[in-house]
């Protein structure tokens, strides 16, 4: 285990902005793609 607590985990040794900026944007975009794909699938299946 690397972290003493939540604040230490969020701080990422002073690199919190860079680490969470990377993970946050990446997973937000991947999640957005999944949502868009689910919507598109529902629309197409509703039409047929």
């Amino acid at each position, binding site marked *: 285990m690397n972290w003493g607590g939540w604040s230490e985990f969020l701080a990422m040794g002073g690199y919190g902005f*860079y680490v969470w900026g*990377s993970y946050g944007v990446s997973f937000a975009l991947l999640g957005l793609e999944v949502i868009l794909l689910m919507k598109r699938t529902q629309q197409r299946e509703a039409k047929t």
Partner: protein
Amino acid sequence: MSATIKWYWFASPQSFFPLAGTIARVCWLGAALLAAGGLYVGFFVAPTDAQQGEAYRIIFIHVPAAWMSMFLYLVMASWAAIGLALNTRLSGMMASAIAPTGALFTFIALWTGALWGRPTWGAYWVWDARLTSELVLLFLYLGFMALQAAIDDPRRADRAGALLAIVGVVNVPIIYYSVQWWNTLHQGASVSLTRAPSMASTMLTGMLLMALAFWLYSIAAALTRVRCIILERE
């Protein structure tokens, strides 16, 4: 039914449709589980890097995303080439289905690279051979998508897109070998097939788990999208 006939049977969009749905569901689940495992190893098992501190943890998305961006381009161009050579309908649809996911991973590789470059190199962006050729890859994906969107007839759009995709393949080895061919700021490969990886084994485990997760994610996303394209076109 022999194996050869079955292969051709699945090349027809109608018969491929239910199979793609089943594979996609399995891959969505697998991607979620592997990503959970990869993130756990990446944040709680892998130790702090001696030189870069915690900033190095960006590696667990950056490197797998960069691998996927190049690999997906090769897969997309292969489907495009098969479509051009054999004139099969499904091939062009597969190429179109892969492009947005490939573009997304290229963007993620560039984005996480910028956020990693700032604390380690002191700059979000430099016009370095590795970074520039990866940016060209993003433009190739976007160009492919824009070209296909601009042509109304899907079969003609497939052929035009295929030409662009095939010509663009030349960029992939340029990205891969850029760190050897030019004197770049970007470091060389940390993992190769011919020698031992230059990192702690837990770091490597986390990275490989994330790479597998992205791999399954890409398969699931491409197959889900190709199902929509089949419904739209047929």
